[in-house]
C-alpha cells in the first residue's frame, strides 16, 4: 500500500480491485444531453451486454446509440475496418441523420490497435458528418471518466474566436455547419467587443440545472457564454485565449487539461457546485476571478441550510463510508461533513489532486471547522479489503455499487446505491435537498423497520 500525503490529507492506493461501471456507460446520458448526436460504441458483445442491461428500459426507446459489434473476422483483420465503419456510419446517417457521430473506442479497439483517430477525419470528409473519437475504455478509465474522454474530444471541435473572426477560414468548415458558423461568427464578434472575458462551463447537466446555474451566476452579474457540451452539437461554445473555463463535476480532469493546453483557455479551479457550501464556494471563486464582489451569497446559503433542517437532524452525527466508483466522492463527502456526518473512508477510482485541489482544500477546511478528523482517501480501492473494514467499522450508511448493496443490506449494513448520485440532479443550491433525499432514504426506510427486528437477513 502506498502512503502519500499532501499537506495533511492522507492518500492511500490499493490494488484497484473494485467494482464500477464501464466508462462506455456515458453514452446513456450524453446521447440524451446532446440531442442531435449519435453514439456508436465499437466493441464486442460484452460491451453490448453491459449497455443493454445497465440502461434497462432506455434500450427499448429507440436510443440514439448502437454497438458496432466486432466479430472474429474484424479481430483477425480479415475485414477492412475502414470499409466496415463506413458502411455502418452511412446506415446511421440514412436512418437517423445526426449532426455528429461519436465513436466510443473500447478495450478491444485498444488491444487490436484500431486507428480510430486516423480513420475518423477521412470518413468525416467522405460522408459529411463530423466524427468525434473518444477512447472510453475499461483499460484506462472508470465510469464517469467516460464523459471526460468524450468532452475532451469535443473540446477540440469547439469553434475558436480567432478562426471565426478570420473569414477566410470559414470555407474550410463543413457545409452543414455553415449556418451555425454564421451564428457563431456573430457571437464571436460580440464577444471580442465585450469588456468582460467570456466564461464557458464544462460538464454535462440536464437543461434545467444548466439554467439554474446560469441564473445563479447572472445574479452576480456574470453571464455564461456557453456550455460544453451544449444541447445540440451545432451550438458548441466558442473557445480561445481569453476564455475562462470552469468545471462543474470532479471527474473532468482530461477535459480541463485539453481546454488549457490545446485551446489556451484559463481554468478557474474551484470546488464543485454540489451542496450549498460547494455552490457558494464555486460562485465565490468565479466572482473573485472576474473581480466581482458576490452579493447576498452568504444569506442564500444560510437559507438553503435552514430548509434542509428536517433532513440534517436525521444524519447529524451519523457515519458514512464511500466505497468509491464515480469520482463524485470527495465533493459528496465534503458536503456531508458540513451536514454533520462523520466520514470513515472516501474510496475513489482516480484522484487528480491538481484538478480537485480547490475541492480538497475545502474538504480540509470543512473538517477543521466541523472539528472532525480528516477522512482517509483511498484511491483504486480493493473492495474485498473495504468490506472487511466496513464489517469492522459498522458505518451508518455505506455508499456502494449495486454489486455489494444487497449483500451488505442482508448483513445489516445500510447502503445507498452510488450510481443514483450520477443520475440525480445534485448541482446548485436548490438541489442540495435532492442529495439529502437520497442519503436519508435508507435511514428513513429503516426507521419504519426498526420494530421488526429483521436487520440481519443471512444465517
Amino acid at each position, binding site marked *: 500500500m502506498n502512503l502519500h500525503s499532501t499537506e495533511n490529507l492522507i492518500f492511500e492506493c490499493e490494488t484497484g480491485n473494485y467494482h464500477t461501471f464501464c466508462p462506455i456507460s456515458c453514452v446513456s446520458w450524453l446521447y440524451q444531453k446532446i440531442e442531435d448526436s449519435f453514439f456508436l460504441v465499437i466493441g464486442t458483445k460484452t460491451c453490448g451486454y453491459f449497455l443493454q442491461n445497465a440502461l434497462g428500459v432506455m434500450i427499448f426507446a429507440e436510443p440514439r446509440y448502437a454497438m458496432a459489434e466486432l466479430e472474429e473476422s474484424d479481430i483477425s483483420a480479415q475485414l477492412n475496418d475502414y470499409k466496415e465503419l463506413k458502411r455502418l456510419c452511412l446506415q446511421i446517417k440514412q436512418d437517423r441523420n445526426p449532426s455528429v457521430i461519436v465513436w466510443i473506442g473500447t*478495450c478491444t479497439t485498444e488491444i487490436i490497435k484500431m486507428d480510430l483517430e486516423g480513420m475518423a477525419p477521412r470518413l468525416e470528409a467522405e460522408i459529411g458528418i463530423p466524427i468525434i473519437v473518444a477512447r472510453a475504455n475499461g483499460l484506462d478509465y472508470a465510469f464517469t471518466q467516460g464523459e471526460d474522454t468524450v468532452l475532451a474530444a469535443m473540446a477540440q471541435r469547439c469553434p475558436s474566436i480567432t478562426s471565426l473572426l478570420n473569414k477566410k477560414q470559414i470555407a474550410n468548415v463543413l457545409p452543414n455547419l455553415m449556418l451555425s458558423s454564421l451564428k457563431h461568427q456573430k457571437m464571436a464578434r460580440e464577444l471580442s467587443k465585450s469588456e468582460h472575458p467570456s466564461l464557458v462551463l464544462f460538464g454535462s447537466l440536464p437543461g434545467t440545472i444548466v439554467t439554474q446555474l446560469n441564473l445563479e451566476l447572472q445574479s452576480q452579474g456574470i453571464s455564461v457564454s456557453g456550455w460544453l457540451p451544449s444541447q445540440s452539437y451545432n451550438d458548441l461554445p466558442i473557445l480561445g485565449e481569453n476564455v475562462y473555463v470552469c468545471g462543474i463535476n470532479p471527474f473532468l480532469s482530461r477535459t480541463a487539461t485539453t481546454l488549457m493546453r490545446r485551446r489556451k483557455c484559463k481554468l478557474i479551479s474551484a470546488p464543485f457546485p454540489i451542496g450549498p457550501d460547494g455552490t457558494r464556494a464555486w460562485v465565490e471563486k468565479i466572482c473573485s476571478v472576474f473581480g466581482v464582489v458576490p452579493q447576498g451569497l452568504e444569506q442564500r446559503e444560510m437559507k438553503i441550510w435552514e430548509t434542509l433542517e428536517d433532513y440534517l437532524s436525521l444524519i447529524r452525527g451519523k457515519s458514512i463510508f464511500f466505497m468509491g466508483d464515480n469520482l463524485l466522492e470527495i465533493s459528496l463527502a465534503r458536503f456531508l461533513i458540513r451536514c454533520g456526518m462523520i466520514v470513515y473512508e472516501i474510496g475513489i477510482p482516480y484522484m487528480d489532486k491538481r484538478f480537485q485541489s480547490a475541492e480538497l482544500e475545502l474538504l480540509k477546511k470543512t473538517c477543521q471547522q466541523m472539528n472532525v478528523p480528516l477522512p482517509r482517501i483511498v484511491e483504486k480501492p480493493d473492495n474485498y479489503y473495504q468490506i472487511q473494514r466496513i464489517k469492522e467499522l459498522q458505518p451508518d450508511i455505506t455508499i456502494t455499487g449495486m454489486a455489494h448493496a444487497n449483500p451488505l443490506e442482508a448483513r445489516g449494513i445500510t447502503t445507498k446505491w452510488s450510481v443514483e448520485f450520477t443520475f440525480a440532479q445534485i448541482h446548485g443550491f436548490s438541489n442540495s435537498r435532492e442529495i439529502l433525499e437520497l442519503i436519508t432514504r435508507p435511514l428513513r426506510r429503516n426507521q419504519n423497520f426498526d420494530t421488526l427486528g429483521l436487520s440481519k437477513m443471512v444465517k
Partner: protein
Amino acid sequence: MKLAYWMYAGPAHIGTLRVASSFKNVHAIMHAPLGDDYFNVMRSMLERSRDFTPVTASIVDRHVLAKGSGEKVVENITRKDKEDCPDLILLTPTCTSSILQEDLQNFVNRASTESQCDVILADVNHYRVNEIQAADRTLEQIIRFYLEKAVKTNQLKLDKTMKPSANILGMFTLGFHNTHDCRELKKLLTDLGISVNLIVPEGGSVTVLKNLTQAWFNIVPYREVGLMSAIYLENEFNMPYVSTTPMGIINTANFIREICQIVKSLAVNLSKKDEIHTLPVLTTENFDFESYIDQQTRFISQAAWFSRSIDCQNLTGKKTVVFGDATHAASMTKILVREMGLKVSCAGTYCKHDADWFREQVAGYTDQILITDDHTQVGDMIARIEPAAIFGTQMERHVGKRLDIPCGVISAPVHIQNFPLGYRPFLGYEGTNQIADLVYNSFTLGMEDHLLEIFGGHDTKEVITKALSNESDLTWNITALQELNKIPGFVRGKVKRNTEKFARQNNINVITLEVMYAAKEAVAA
C-alpha cells in the same frame, strides 16, 4: 462488424459465470478490464442475491498490456484461495483476454501448485459461442474434471442408490423461473417415488460431484444447458437421461412415461445383478403411473379442465406468435396448439445453434418458423402477422407495447419482474396452471382493451361523475338497466358514463334502451 442494439444471448463469459456462481463455494476470477464485472450487479439485482457474488476480476489494464498478466493472475488466484478457501477457482476468459492470447492455461497450472483449491480454466471461445453454449460447456467441463479426478483417486461412487434416483442437470442462477421449476420437479419425482440424488449446479458443492454416478439416470429439464453433461455421463458411465421438458400437460405425461420406462428397465437389470434387494415403489405393481398421470391431469392440474371450459373455447383459432429460447418456445408452441386450440402463426427461437431440433419440434404446429437473433426481424414479423397475443422475451413485450398487442413473457432474456417472489414454475403440473393463467390473462387483457376502444377509449376523457351511480340525477328505466347489466363488468362503468354523458348533452332525463344505442352510436361516430 454488425450494427446491434439488443442481443438475446449474452457473451460467453456470462454463461461461465452463471454456472460457476451457482455452485456453492466456487469462485470465478475473470480476466477482464475494469467494469466487466457487471455480472455481479445483475445477480445482486435481478436475483436479489443476499450473498456476495463469488466473482472477482483480475483487472487487465495498461500495465498488464505492457508486462503481461501472468504474475497478476497467479497472485489473484492464490490470494482468493487464502481469503475464501473455495473448493474450486475457475479462471474465466473474456473477449478482451481472448485477443490478448496469453497462455492462461499456464497461469492456471502455476497457480494450482500454489493453492489448496482446484483451479481450472474455462474452455470457451468468446467469438464462437454465446452465453448459453458457454454455460453448457462449462457445466460439462466441471463435471468431467471432478469425475476424472474421482476416477484417478478411486473415489468414484459407481454403486447405484437403493431407491431409484435422478440427478437434475442445468438448474442455475439467473435462469428463467429455475428455482420454482426445480421445486416443482422435486415434487413430481417425490410423487413417483424417485429421490433426487444431486441438483447440478444450483446450490450444490463440487466436492459431491463424484456421487453423480450413483443416480439411476439424469434429467435435463432445459436443453440449452445440461445436455452436454448428460451426454458425457451417458457415454462414460452408461447413465440414461431424459431430455423431454415437462412443460405442458402432454409433455409432462411423456416425461413421466420416459422416466418410468428407464426406471423399470434399470430395476430389472439391477435386481438381476442382485445389486438391488428391495424393489422401489415405482416398479411394484401397485403403483400405476398411468393412473397417476390421469389423476394429475384431470384433477390436480386445472389446465386440462381449462382447455375444456368455455373460457378457452373463446380463444380457439386466435393468432399468436411465439419466440424465445429453444426449450420454452417449442414447448409453448405445442401447448398453445395442442392443449388450447390456438393458432401459432410463427414460432421462432434465437438459439441458432439448435435450429434443427427446434424445426423438428414445432413442425406441423406452426405456419412459419423463424430462426434469428436479430430482434428487428422478430419485430417486423410480429407487425406483419398482427397476432392477438405474443409469447416471447422482454424484447417482444416491448414490441407488443408499441403495437398494442399483449405479450406474455415465456423466456429469457428477462427483467427483474421475471424473478417473482411467489411460486411460479413453468414445469410440471403446477406449471401448467401458471401457463394457463399467463395465456388467458394475455388474451383477456387484449379483449378488454378492444372493448374499451369500441366504447370510446380510456379514462383520459372527461369524467362526469366519479362514482358509478347513485348521485346521478338521471334515471334508467328497467329495460335499459337490464341491458346495462348484460354488459361485462369491466366495461360497464365506462358504458354507463358514456351513456349518461350523452344524455346530459342532449337534455334527456330518462335513459331508455334507445338512448343507450344512440349514445353508443354517437361515441362510435
